[in-house]
């Protein structure tokens, strides 16, 4: 059981959990699933920098070599962007629940949509 195997399994498991949750029909599991997918992708990006033992990413006079700093910067960017998006989708799902009274993800949930369409607009 090497470290690479453990890491790959963890990324795969988190991605699988995320995909399963996204396909559920209520808003909160979808949000949690998106968070799991973002965990998986951030660990994946970090691992793309390859393994360098005991080496710093920042220039220093006493360093024997350096680990790759670029994936670490990519991970930071991705975390910040995903954080903003997650905040947005949480507020959006809450607002949607308060306006419609249900946290069902699907559109066209029945009579209210057909009736409003009939009322509002021309039917083609």
């Amino acid at each position, binding site marked *: 059981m090497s470290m690479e195997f453990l890491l790959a399994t963890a990324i795969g498991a988190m991605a699988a959990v995320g995909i399963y949750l*996204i396909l559920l029909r209520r*808003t909160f599991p*979808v949000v949690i699933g*998106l968070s799991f*997918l*973002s965990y*998986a*992708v951030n660990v*994946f*990006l970090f691992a*793309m920098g*390859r393994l360098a033992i005991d080496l710093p990413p920042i220039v220093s006079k006493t360093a024997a070599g350096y680990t790759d700093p*670029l*994936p670490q910067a*990519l991970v930071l*960017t*991705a975390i910040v*962007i*995903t954080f*903003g*998006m997650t905040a*947005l*989708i949480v507020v*959006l*799902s809450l*607002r*949607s629940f308060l*306006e*419609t009274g249900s946290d069902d*993800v699907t*559109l066209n949930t029945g009579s209210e*949509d057909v009736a*409003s*369409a*009939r*009322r*509002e*607009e*021309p*039917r*083609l």
Partner: protein
Amino acid sequence: MSAAMNQSMVLPVAIPAMTAAILVLVSRYGLGIQRLVSVVATASQLLAAIWLYSIASDGETRVYLLGYWPPPFGIVLVLDRLAATMLLLTGVLASCVLGSALGTWDQRGRHFHALFQFQLLGINGAFLTGDIFNLFVFFEVLLIASYGLMLHGGGPRRLKAGFQYVAINLVGSTVFLFAVGTIYAVTGTLNMADLAVKVRQVAAGNEALLAAGALMLLTVFAIKSAMVPLHWWLPPTYGSTSPPAAALFAIMTKVGAYSIIRVYTLIFGAEAGPMAGVALPWIMPVAVLTLVLGTFGVLASRRLADLVAYSVVASMGTLLIAIGLNSAGGLAAALYYAVQSTFTSAGLFLLAGLIVGREDDRPAVVETPAEAQSTGIMMALAALFFLLAIAMVGMPPLAGFIGKLLILDAGRAGGQIGIVWPAVLITSLLLILGFARAGIRIFWVAPERVLDDARPTTRILPIAAIVAMIAAMAALTVFARPVMSDMTSAAQQLLAPQGYIDAVFNSMPRAAAMVTP
């Protein structure tokens, strides 16, 4: 002088960035000053786009180094003919859409203008960038702004559709990161020009990994450009959003198409060695399928906004057919068709908003809108619908006909006449049926109920914006020859990526010595 020209490349990115921040700051002084700032900024972006188009017409690829970091390590903005064309398209579209939103939709919610400018920042940046992770960042900027614009105005239907739109784009962003990570792990670089060089030298053991990364990238761009089977988000989103937002979103699918063109001619193009044409076998069949499903959607739609959204899917299918031909003629036809279909889709979305009378977004109590407006206004809307419908369907004399004709010609020249001609022609016939039926049901059916609720009269600005877009398409028709010669030059520049690579590596003399391409 050339240094000043290079510096001016950053204007389409810098102007909306500063303006959006200023707009948030002045938002407490009322809507009037926000409108003024936004109009000035959008007009100056249009002028900058016209200027950049004129300087890119000499065929030289110009590079702007962000922070003056040397190219393979720093982020670059690259202006070639394709980028300049897309920037000009964005500028014109944004001006028309902003004109249509003033006084009507921009007061339905807060921060419309700031979100509009952020959206333009993301779109302009995506067209200019020469670094693939920077493309991801600009994609995110334009997506987040589009979430805000899409939800503008609120309402239960819009919120539900917005949740789905946000969720699928977050999944798309995740796949983008997986793809970029894979490509970085194999090649060690994120700069597009450097990737073009490194991809040719990929070691035999890493080919499968790189191909996986390339196709994951295609998946992301497929979500953005509504390729089947990733097109399902488009009709609910574009059909539920406010008309100016939907009109601006007409260019977002073109961002996906632009990314496909850029990545798969520059990085994985014909000179990429073992990776050459890695995405090509997928594009043509998927494009035909997209066109067919979009057409069926047009025939099946019960709401006008859904019909227009499915026609956007169908037009993206046509555009991707042209891209999939992978020839200079095909790419030139694709660029021409992209420009005209953007105007057509935007005009149709604005018109759908006017016809349904959703300016105030209240549920109406009239069965058909024939009573809702004065006869004069309805006749004007009917004429505009007729013009836009024939442009979307591809009938003469407007630019849609020339666009489809060019695609058919490129298909014949490329030897794929057996696939392209039946697909385009049969779906055009079905689209004619769909639009004709819609026009009949909206404008010729006698009203069944009388007006119960007083409705506001249609403002002049949205109609002026639609007329401006139809005028732009008429100009595209009349000036088709010079426009097509420009597009052909752009296509030839794309199919010769060495010019792009040399321009990036030579943009800073020290860098050329540090890195051996």
